[in-house]
């Protein structure tokens, strides 16, 4: 184990009191990335499940990969490329964004961990991957950096860090960028890559997203199948419902995401969609809502965030349903924001503790009454 020896040799330098003691958290993050630590149980259960946060977060990223790869391909294909070239174009196009997201976000996380003398939590591993996927592909890098910084500091660290935040940090970044730079972040150009390379035809490529077309005309220029497969403009990773569902299947299979939440969001969205169709506010089928925009992505990867979503099983049904219903409500009724998913999830993040509060209160009352009725 040569690598282990090297790590052991430099460890004192990077520990508290060592020359680079101020990097202890960073060093620890790298060390525990390479090696599962040799810490043993001290109290309580002597054996532990071999699952940990690193593995959990790794599987979430794994679940994001299909949608990410399709996002790369779609970015290329929207500017006239095909096949492997499209994939490579998209990959090159998005990597700077991903790098900025991780460097800025992890940088802030490491600083906070060092100040608190904690280990670096793995949560940002996922958040940092999510952020580029929910941004339009032509979002300027400095905006991404600002959004990330805002999200990590005000969306997460001010609440106490991982596990304590109220709002989904990735969505906080998205919301910040959207509201702070509305002119740049809306319109018809931002959804298409503007990099001239690999023979991409970027000049004059523009157009409304499927979602915007539905909101304004009630129709979209793409077929349902195109929307399901993801060959439509939109934020980088959100377009392919199929790839998102693949990732969702992995999350459900591993039990990391709650099927209760995920299912309820879809049901809520459909129910609201049918309602609007029935009363004649919309004249396209309700299931369109699940295929366009960020609905599926939000339902699978955002609404199910175990920290910011409801914590109780009953709460998950309620919050999930309301998230889906609210997203469609905003989409249809509010003319200013064609995308309701982001706002719906953030709003339900804020409401989830209240829903849980009532579920837990019901449990407390139930248990009090139960005790009275026995004998």
């Amino acid at each position, binding site marked *: 184990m040569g690598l282990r020896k090297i790590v052991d040799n430099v460890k004192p330098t990077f520990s508290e009191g060592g020359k680079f003691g101020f990097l202890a958290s960073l060093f620890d993050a790298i060390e525990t990335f390479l*090696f599962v630590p040799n810490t*043993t149980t001290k109290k309580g259960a*002597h054996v532990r*499940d071999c699952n940990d946060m690193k593995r*959990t977060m790794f599987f979430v990223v794994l679940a994001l990969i299909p949608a990410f790869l399709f996002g790369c391909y779609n970015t290329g294909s929207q500017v006239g490329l095909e096949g492997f070239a499209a994939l490579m174009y998209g990959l090159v196009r998005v990597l700077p964004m991903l790098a900025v997201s991780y460097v800025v976000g992890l940088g802030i996380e490491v600083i906070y961990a060092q100040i608190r003398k904690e280990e670096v939590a793995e949560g940002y591993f996922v958040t940092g991957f999510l952020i580029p996927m929910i941004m339009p592909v032509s979002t300027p890098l400095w905006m991404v950096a600002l959004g990330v910084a805002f999200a990590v500091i005000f969306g997460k660290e001010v609440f106490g860090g991982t596990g304590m935040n109220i709002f989904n940090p990735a969505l906080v970044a998205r919301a910040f960028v959207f509201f702070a730079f509305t002119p740049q972040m809306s319109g018809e150009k931002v959804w298409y890559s503007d990099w001239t390379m690999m023979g991409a035809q970027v000049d004059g490529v523009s157009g409304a997203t499927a979602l915007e077309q539905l909101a304004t005309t009630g129709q979209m220029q793409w077929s349902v199948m195109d929307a399901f497969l993801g060959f439509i403009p939109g934020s980088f990773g959100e377009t392919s419902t199929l790839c998102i569902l693949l990732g969702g299947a992995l999350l459900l299979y591993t039990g990391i995401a709650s099927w209760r939440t995920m299912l309820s969001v879809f049901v809520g969205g459909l129910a609201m969609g049918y309602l609007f169709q029935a009363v004649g506010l919309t004249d396209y089928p309700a299931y369109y809502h699940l295929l366009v925009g960020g609905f599926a992505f939000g339902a699978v990867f955002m609404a199910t965030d175990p920290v910011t*979503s409801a914590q109780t099983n009953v709460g998950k049904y309620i919050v999930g349903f309301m998230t889906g219903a609210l997203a469609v409500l905003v989409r249809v009724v509010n003319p200013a924001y064609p995308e309701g998913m982001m706002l719906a999830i953030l709003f339900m993040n804020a409401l989830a503790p209240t829903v849980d509060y009532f579920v837990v209160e019901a449990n407390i009352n139930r248990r*009090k009454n*139960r005790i009275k009725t026995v004998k």
Partner: protein
Amino acid sequence: MSEIIKLRKGLDINLQGKATESLVEAPMAATYAVSPLDYENVTPKLLVKVGDKVKAGTPLFFDKNNTRVVYTSPVSGTVSAVNRGEKRKILNVTVEADKEQVSEEFAVLDLKKASREEVIEMLLKSGLWTMILQRPYGIVANPADEPKALFVSAFDSAPLAPCMNFALKGEQANLQKGLEVLSLLAAGNVHLSVRANAAGEMAALKGVKMHTFEGKHPVGNVGVQIHHIDPIAKGDIVWTVAIQDVAAIGRLFSTGKVDLHKVIALTGSEVEKPQYYRIISGAPVASVLEGQIKKQAEGDSVRIISGNVLTGKKVEADGYITATASQITVIPEGDKYEMLGWIAPRTHRFSVSRSYFSWLCPKKQYKLDTNLNGGVRPFVMAGLFEEYLPMDIYPMYLFKAIIAGDIDKMENLGIYEILEEDIALCEFVDPSKTEIQQLVRDGINLMIKEC
């Protein structure tokens, strides 16, 4: 017999080293120990000094918090040491055993005529009172209280737990006698819970309210059973006694002598020949482990646990078996680094998560070590603990109330109904590696202090 209470939640961790049903008489050990640390919230005050002669049943110390309760010697002999730790805290009192064992003699009571107070007095004097634990809090019962009911679990569902039907073979009369004694103590019923399809002779015991449980661990925990039979509300007090202790109480009331022998299972992947031993309470672990630990490769070591892998206490090779233990488990220490282990398939390790493959082979027996398998993190995974606590309680909310020190919430969310052992599985599965059992004990201690 009443209907079967089926519990869906829980987890059986399938470990290597289950005891085979053969019983070895452990030889008389040189010294025996009684430790106040085997009980919660005991402040010991010594009644003997080194060199004093004692018999089985002679008081060694009493509890300043519960002054009528004395802790007695399990054997006759000479007090050989009072071992102290930091701040002169008493760790244990050891007694060097005589060759000829004698017990304090107690007048045998006629249970048909004896008053409740006489029975209590006999239990207190003999030291067997310390076998009666109070819920809430899991402390030794206060003789001034009258519990609303008394609960006994006739089986243990913990990993590698001994089969109580085997351990108590031939003790049927003593069990019956013990239950008779206990029925004099509680205002309400004595509840005895047996395992479905594995009740054995226990099902024939009389004078108790019999319940049948079916399910995975922690179904054998008396706390879980109480929750489903007659839950504890604020102000309620119930008492519990371990099934082997019921037999010891029965022996005392049949013979008038203190006879603290019991059968324990020697288990775990690092044991040469896992089997049952008849010992006297307080025996050194070496008396059963002699030559039984598998030879370890260089750099490897083992952990000896007095009790099961979820709730037992870590003991050194020269330590003593805790009073409440009915098994000893020996497993490998996990003080090893594992390169990129968190991405590896790790088929040799066990997880309830499907990000591993252990769910594919439910019959496989695992050799688990003591590695924490990750770093300590804040709570993240919601909804996981609920699956491993078969009670109508929201564990995550309870744990958070404990962290916040919110007494009202702890009370409302169910702190009276649980002990460390009941949420040990939550600690096992927690990917954030929180020390939940210690957390719950801290919460209980706060309740004791504040209420």
